[in-house]
């Protein structure tokens, strides 16, 4: 038993991948990850957290988000508590 879905007409996947509509749906995932990481007890780590948005061009262009901390502080916190890994799990990723 299964289902088949057919899209009629021409779809430009590039436009979909970089569309504001899709970005608005997906950006809350990055926000969820960031919010979970901000609950870490290390203040320096939390202060160094940033969320960056990237838009790439070309046929395979897309919107993506990068959430991270200062590299050295981030590695120490990750080794001790796995904050980023658990934040990704909380977001269902």
């Amino acid at each position, binding site marked *: 038993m299964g289902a088949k879905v057919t899209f009629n007409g021409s779809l430009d996947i590039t436009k979909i991948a970089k569309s504001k509509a899709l970005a608005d749906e997906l950006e809350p995932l990055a926000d969820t990850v960031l919010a979970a990481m901000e609950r870490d007890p290390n203040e320096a780590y939390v202060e160094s957290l940033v969320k960056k948005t990237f838009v790439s061009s070309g046929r395979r262009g897309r919107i993506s988000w990068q959430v991270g901390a200062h590299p050295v502080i981030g590695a120490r916190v*990750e*080794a001790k508590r796995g904050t980023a890994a*658990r934040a990704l*799990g909380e977001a269902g*990723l």
Partner: protein
Amino acid sequence: MTFIAPSKFPSSDGKIVTALRVGLTARGWSAGLTATRTLPATKTRRMVTVRNDSGPQQVSRSVRRYGVNLWCDNSVAGESPTVDGEKFALDGMSVLQTIADGRPIARMYEFSGPYEIEDDVPYIVGGKSLAHFYFSFTCLVRGTSN
């Protein structure tokens, strides 16, 4: 009507800890080696801890992220503990990349590291300071019908 049967997922921690202990021993790191889920009360010259950071369950697969901390002294005269520590960690990563057998671990992927971690107070065993490294990976565990 239920299309997708609920699944139950087995533990994977024990298999990973055992694989590290056996694999690192086979690669010559047996002297003073402890591989456990938490740091031992009595520190040894080579220690490995495995932390399960868990993750989402998706139908019949459970995505689990793990963090592995490793501490190592220098075993070769003249070498720094950092050199040996990195080799120790790289061997640990290599061991784990081959343990997926389908039951219950379907896949081991997204290995990242090893990163050198500077401890606030380094562990000292046998008069030698231990180098600390960390790596992470993702493990896909297969569930069975509930």
